[in-house]
């Protein structure tokens, strides 16, 4: 009986040692004193690598990033990270993280509004900072995301958030920075021979494009008119015409990319157009380059979209985009829980031709530039937010990815998560039982 009690108490102690019982950890407190990370290899995010580097930050901003030799240690809390690597916090664009918890449970879904034209809908107000998934994403180095609505022709506005916050207001890095347009598909799955649905679909597509044309036409003049009544849809789009908001066009098929860009340009949107998805971006690279369009490429870990394509086409697309001189970022779109694999799709791009630092940029600085937040984040440079990751080894390879520290605006994150809690819980159970099992064996 005695032994039994001992095990119980050991077990209880173990449970208590796990903080907060599987809750999402509390957000870290504001940076209170200057910090200095020393001895690591610094991957700035802009292609530069500094060996034996130091990174200092104070009040949430980076104050030093360079060789250890040049760092001022005075008054800093120094963390020795010798032999490790420092990276900018990774950025996941175009995601429903925080809008969706369990995809099969409708009550947990907040990413899709009804109706075709919802430019006024704002994703950030539904962003759930207490999602169980978020801490697991952070633990692999992803610290920022673009909360993005889906559905309809115009889904609404996205916002950039940082992934350690008490509430959505607290999380916002840049609110309502862009509007998302799902370009009406040119292709339709009929599941069989051509059928009446096809004609129907073509008609719907025409209608959608014509509705969109009217929306853009009316929105482009809305601000200059004296409006007796406020029109939420039109007013929400004003930023598209003065360049203060981005237009994210979701399109994959090569001809859709060309058609959609030409269309919105004709309707007065000249700048800050981003193609998202961009499956065929390589096929229309000349067009993208001529029009100075950036690309968020979704789905490196994807099958070729056509049976005749090179088997490694999605894997090597980032390299081909880079070769073609197209500004691009990567997004992990297979699942929400899988966003923690964002560094690894960049790694796959490396295995298929892309330079390692270029690959890093495609999930940090390039992304920040494309999203318009590069003055604040995206690289480890003086004056930017101290939003960075320290990893024991190469962050882009799951074999070596081992995040030891992560900071958002200088705040040191608690890297615990529900999964680690469950692991400890059951590992503890088996460890507690192990002597008993062995003892039983010995008795036999």
């Amino acid at each position, binding site marked *: 009986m005695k032994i039994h009690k001992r095990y119980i108490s050991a077990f209880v102690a173990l449970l208590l040692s796990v903080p907060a019982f599987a809750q999402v950890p509390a957000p870290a407190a504001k940076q209170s004193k200057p910090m200095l990370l020393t001895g690591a290899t610094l991957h700035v995010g802009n292609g530069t690598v500094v060996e034996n580097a130091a990174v200092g930050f104070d009040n949430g901003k980076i104050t030093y990033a360079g060789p250890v030799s040049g760092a001022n240690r005075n008054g800093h809390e120094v963390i020795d990270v010798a032999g490790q690597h420092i990276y900018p916090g990774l950025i996941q664009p175009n995601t429903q993280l925080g809008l969706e918890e*369990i995809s099969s449970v409708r009550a947990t879904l907040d990413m899709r509004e009804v109706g075709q034209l919802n430019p006024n809908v704002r994703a950030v107000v539904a962003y759930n900072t207490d999602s169980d998934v978020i801490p697991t994403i952070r633990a692999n180095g992803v610290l920022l995301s673009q909360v993005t609505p889906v559905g309809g022709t115009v889904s609404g506005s996205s916002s950039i958030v940082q992934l350690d916050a008490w509430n959505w207001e607290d999380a916002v890095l840049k609110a309502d920075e862009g509007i998302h347009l799902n370009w009406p598909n*040119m292709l339709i799955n009929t599941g069989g021979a*051509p059928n009446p649905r096809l004609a129907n679909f073509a008609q719907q597509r025409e209608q959608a494009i014509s509705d969109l044309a009217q929306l853009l036409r009316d929105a482009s003049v809305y601000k200059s008119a004296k409006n007796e009544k406020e029109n939420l849809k039109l007013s929400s789009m004003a930023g598209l015409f003065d360049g203060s908001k981005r237009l994210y066009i979701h399109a994959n098929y090569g001809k859709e990319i060309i058609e959609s860009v030409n269309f919105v340009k004709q309707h007065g949107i000249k700048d800050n157009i981003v193609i998202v998805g961009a499956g065929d971006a390589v096929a229309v690279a000349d067009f993208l380059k001529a029009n100075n369009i950036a690309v968020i490429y979704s789905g490196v870990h994807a099958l070729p979209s056509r049976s*005749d394509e090179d*088997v490694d086409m999605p894997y090597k697309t980032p390299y081909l985009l880079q070769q073609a001189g197209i500004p691009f970022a990567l997004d992990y779109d297979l699942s929400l829980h899988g966003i*923690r694999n964002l560094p690894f799709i960049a*790694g796959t791009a490396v295995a298929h031709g892309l330079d390692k630092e270029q690959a890093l940029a495609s999930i940090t600085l390039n992304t920040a530039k494309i999203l318009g937040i590069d003055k604040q984040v995206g690289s480890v440079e003086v004056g930017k937010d101290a939003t960075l990751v320290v990893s024991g080894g190469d962050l882009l390879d799951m*074999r070596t990815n081992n995040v030891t520290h992560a900071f958002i605006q200088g705040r040191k994150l608690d890297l615990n998560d529900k999964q680690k809690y469950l692991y400890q819980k059951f590992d503890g159970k*088996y460890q507690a039982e192990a002597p008993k099992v062995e003892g039983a064996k010995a008795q036999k």
Partner: protein
Amino acid sequence: MRKILTIAACLALGAAGSAMAQETFPRNGVYDERTGLVALTNATIHTDYKTTIENATLLIRNGKVEAVGTKVQVPAGAVVVDAKGKHIYPGLVDMFSAYGLPEVKSERRNYGSPPQEESTKQGAYNWNQAIRPETNAVELFKVDKKQAEEMRKLGFGTVLSVHRDGIARGTATLVTLADKRENEVVLLDKAAGALSFDRGSSPQDYPNSLMGAIALLRQTYLDAQWNNMNPGREQNISLKAFSDANNFPQIFEADNKLNVLRADKVGDEFKKQYIIKGGGDEYQMIKEIKATNAPIIVSLNFPEAYNVEDTYDARRVSLDAMKHWEMAPANPALLQKAGIPFAITVSDLKDKKDFLPNLRKAIEYGLPEEEALKALTATPAQLLKADKHVGSLDKGKLANFIITSGNLFAEDNVILENWVQGNQYKITEVPSDYRGIYTLKIGQQPEKRLQIAGTPDKPELKVIGQDTVTGKISFSGNLVTLSFTKDKKSKETVRLSGWYADKNLQGDGQLPDATPVKWSAKFSEAMTQQAKKDAAKEAKKALELGNMVYPFQAFGQAELPKQETVLIKNATVWTNEKDGILQNTDVLLKNGKIAKVGKNLSESGARIVDGTGKHVTPGIIDEHSHIALDGVNEGTQAVTAEVRMKDVVNHEDPNIYRQLAGGVTTSQLLHGSANPIGGQSAIIKLRWGKSPQEMLVENADEFIKFALGENVKHSNRSPVHNVRFPQTRMGVEQVYVDAFQRAKEYEQTWKNYSKLSKKQKAAQGEPRRDIELETLVEILNNKRFITCHSYVQSEINMMMKVADQMGFKVNTFTHILEGYKVADKMRDHGAGGSTFSDWWAYKMEVKDAIPQNAGIMHKLGVTTAINSDDAEMARRLNQEAAKSVKYAGVSEEDALKMVTLNPAKLLHLDNRMGSIKPGKDADVVLWNNHPLSIYARAEKTFVDGIAYYDLERDTQLRQELEKERGRLVQKMLQAKTSGARTQAPAQRRASVVHCEDVEHNEEEEYLAY
């Protein structure tokens, strides 16, 4: 049969050219029956496909051939028709038609409809509505004048009418295309039995997959046999009819080459040699098709060229679709060359008028004319055992024949008349041939030359004076109309009308200035033979066809890679044996096996592969895959142990090749997870280019899929699905207990029966064989092993308790995301775990999944594998294994085993796969980097010592593929330019399936603009 002969014998009285009279029918008015005695003389008669008699006479009476030959005496009273210069052929036979039968309306309800478990057909029929052998086409058949005329115009006189509805379709009837009462045109009321894999109009859920259809057909054979032997046990009209229909030639409708093979396999099991209606792609697997010994009913449905003018859209047309467009017309010729007997059908043609042009195309592509005729006459007649009625023009056979202007297969030939049962149907009036050179005189104008060329029915006009102008000419009877411009530059038209008399033309006309004129055109010379030929045929280009490739798919090859002796030198070798990871080590592959592992090996004749700086591992084994399948879920009944994934392996899935490029060599192809007891697994090696049969791992143990949780209880489907038992995890347990209880009782029934004496056996009758319960009995007897889809701890625990209770073991829990919660229990039960590396949170039952799951199970001593359930992820399974190092601290060696040796153990194949050990299969991968690294790429993947994937060859294949596409694009553009019909580019691809997908979809994407 006797009845028909009796009636025919009575025809001496003579009906109006009919083979059968309506003896039993009263008449309104006086009798008007005629002997239909007709002699067609001086014709070229093709009495059968290989015999031609010149200057012969065909004598018919009472709808039958009375005599044929050169010495036929024309009896007095015969109507004599001079057929000089014309050809007579036997009327054509189409043995796969739906003539005169009601349209089959698919009553398949949509995805949102509630399931229908039971039959809604009232009466003592079969339990499943797709089994409708009680259908006799003859009872549904109605003469349809419009359809008959359409077919007669093509030259057909007789068709087999098949009611194309359901899996067992009852009997088909052989009828002529005469416009007579049904009683007269039916030749054989039941001429054939008809089968397919398509459930047709049945609204019932089961079967909703190909493998389910196959299982249902097999069970129906067994049920019919049992019913036959034990007639008192169950009254079943359908089963009786099924046995009856079995007595006729069996026609199986299969819509593609793989279904031809699948159908034949079912036939073999029940000692039936089916005649199989194919889809026109048989040439792609000619060796396997030949081996079936099945006569094939060949479709002439040649695809139209794709419109590839738009380069973006053209990319969407796959290589196999382009190649099939090019090669489909060669299908009949290739079948013939392979010695496969075949008949030709027009049933698949959207526009039936394509029949003769397509047939000519097939001839142009190498089918001898004689063989084409055979496939339309003698072969279908013989296959239907109707050769005493139709198929040739011998004495006593039906007077079914066509009269043509020339060789039936020639481009300028015209079918003039089609006689059916002695009834004459005029098809085309003989077009008079006015072609030649004439001297044209219009009023007082100088003489011009007038040339009429083209074909007799489409003459072309040229007027040659000071310059040459083309014009229009048309004949109507012997009236003629011409128009042409005054001269080359002018737009003013001269119009002439007139008539034909004594080889000359003459009449009245009007000049452009409205002056009326008299005109004449005097015949001066006939058209030369050469000119005629030129007009009839466009210059024929030599046929140039691309290579046959295996599989018929992008990255298929004309020559498959060969097994070689390969010596990989100086690599880092992950042995998965006691030796662990060996540096600077050589591996010798020979005769498909790993021959030696060691330092400084040498082997004469071996191809040396430098492995310096590279890694060699055993091939990756995916315990949970759904690639290479034509169907995943028979997601209908709670227990479908009878379905077999082996029946639906598709060797052409491009994911096979893609996964080889990721180092995968063996995959277990599992049934889906829609039911507690799913179907039987297929384990394949990724032998890209081989047939489905050749891909199966030889002598592998048999496995079956079980499933627990949300999918089987339909949690994530619409509320209309809340009716099938089970809807809770409580019910799931009862499904298993019940199923195995029944299995035990089934086994006992057979054991008891086998102990009986012969006499007792005869008295008692054999128990019914049930292929579902037989499968469960195999599990109880350790002859089949379970892979069980599972997530949460309660259900895992329950499954093991049921297994203990019923006396079997759960071999593997797959997915098993909460395995870490019950790993000790799994270990004690002896179950393995095959899991995802890091998936979670996508549904309620995976909200507690953790990436350390594999690590904990492994640590507790559970044989642990990492699987994909995903065609893409399978290409990176080595990296998925690496995540167990990252998240749970598993050693790298043990992590690699999770995708090699451990799945081999779970599949009972570790005696020949999963490690680098002499004597094991040479399934190895050469990596350019550490195999657990994101940066690793497979450079060579060997299966049985054959490099099915080789990075260098892949580069070459890509270039060849582009070249071949380029050639075919050009050819399609030319076809379009020369007037061929085209279709919009469509992309056909199998959707990526996971075990959750209830129905397998072929996706086709069309352009919506």
